[in-house]
């Protein structure tokens, strides 16, 4: 964290304007987790079509009568996110392969916990119909109940359980 990012309020206004532009032009908000879902659905649909047809989660999106699930708005949007973040990181001199971790965690531990966190986020986003971007942020912008409830649930749980995961992130000054 030696590099100073953009002023957060300015970044917030810019992010809000990007979201506003998206709603104004396309009538929908931004998202992220939907792309992961498309990848999974496409992979299962290609590898095991009968299995996909038997499960309503896949069958809603893949199989006869459906377009390729990868030809989805959010897949293209997330491809754009990847490009945009790369260009930003390039400009700021932040391109560097490495693992960022708390002072008390090994690299292997960090990667395991990151994957576990990703798995929880992926599953939770299916249940809540969207993640921090698609459900919480975009939902709050259009004042939806789902947006505010999801936001409160994510951050409320985060604050409530942060104490238990402090070993992953904070230096252990209390220990001797």
């Amino acid at each position, binding site marked *: 964290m030696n590099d100073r990012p953009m002023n957060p309020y300015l970044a917030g206004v810019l992010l809000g304007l990007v979201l*506003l532009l998206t709603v104004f032009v396309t009538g929908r908000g931004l998202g992220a987790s939907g792309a992961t879902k498309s990848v999974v659905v496409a992979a299962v649909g290609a590898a095991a079509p009968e299995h996909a047809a038997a499960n309503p989660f896949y069958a809603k999106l893949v199989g006869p009568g459906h377009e390729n699930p990868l030809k989805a708005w959010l897949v293209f949007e997330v491809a754009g996110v990847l490009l945009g973040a790369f260009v930003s990181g390039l400009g700021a001199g932040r391109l560097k392969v490495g693992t960022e971790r708390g002072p008390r965690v090994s690299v292997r531990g960090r990667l395991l916990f990151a*994957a576990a966190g990703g798995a929880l986020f992926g599953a939770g986003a299916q249940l809540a119909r969207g993640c921090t971007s698609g459900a919480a942020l975009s939902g709050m912008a259009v004042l939806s109940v789902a947006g505010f409830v999801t936001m409160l649930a994510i951050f409320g749980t985060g604050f409530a359980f942060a104490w238990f995961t402090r070993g*992953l992130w904070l230096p252990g000054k209390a220990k001797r």
Partner: protein
Amino acid sequence: MGPFVPDLITDQLNLVVALAVGFLFGFVLEQAGFSSSRRLVGVFYGYDLTVLRVFFTAAVTAAVGILLLAAGGLLDLKAIFVNPTWLWPAIAGGAIMGLGFLLGGFCPGTSVCAAAIGKVDAMAFLGGSVLGVFAYAELFPRFAGFADSSALGPALVPDALGISAGLFVLLLAAAAIAAFAVGGIVERKVAGAAAPSSAFPRRLHVASAALLLAVAGLAAALPDRKARLVAKVSAPGYAPHHLVRPMSPDELAFRIVDGDHRLRVVDLRGEAARAARPLPGAVSVPADDVLGREWRDVFARRMVQKVVVAPTEEEARTAAFLLVETGFENLAYLAGGFPAFERTILTPGAPAGEPRFAPVVERFRTEARAALAERARLEKEAGTPAPRKAKKVQGGC
């Protein structure tokens, strides 16, 4: 008027738009420093509140902007996607995501950003999220009932609280500013000089907060577009910039019976009234929805005269004026409201007025009455046309 999907922007072109707005999204997220997991989770420990600042500011900015665009008539709020609520699944899913945030240090969008600049932990997070979605999908049939429970539809918070959207957004902006002020104090207490807020230009931020409150207050105070237009056309001395003429019941009856293809009857009456006294060939439009997008192609035909029929002449005239204000022309309204039509055309009796024309008028009205009844009967036999529906944007994750 936005949104431009699906009318102006096709589904294919929309994918290009997705790539472009995704680029901007990713660029801003990365510029905000969201490619660092330790900065992101700082919000939960108080040493770095960047997430709170960026996220809350973005939500308020977009909400205020959407209200302003709608008040200016540039964005159709009925057409945009509002993510539907499944209350308990949203709470449970949010709680699971909160735990995922603590363990993983990212959310899906920020993990994509961090992976893009080479963070291996973010790639692990993305791999894990694929597994998480797969596990969810495989187990889905077991709890599909819960996943679809407590459905509230596209519910809005201001409606649930019983306040206007503008007031709610103003309160939200005030809550954001309060959270930023308190958060800054906490952050400096926890992290001291290392806290990002210790380097903030204090005066500029106070001025920005005041500006935000002013803009949110403006958004709250602006009447919505329709209320503004109704007030404008109801004001004394209002003159429409295209001729809007009253049409007598006799002319309306004659032109309907004549099959005049340069006439379109726009019926604003309620369903019961329409069923009892149908007007053949009319398009029925809900009285409070004359400005809806779904009728635009009806009103946009310039060579066809649109005659508005309503329970009272005033309602019909106001609707016609509203349509002229929003850019349509060649409009008329039924003089005297529908009761005048019912009294003169649909009820047998000697016509008022010049006695020497009375027999001719009475004969015309008798024939018109019979012809209208016949047309209505044929239309009923043919079945009612499917109701028009506004195209709605599909969205969501």
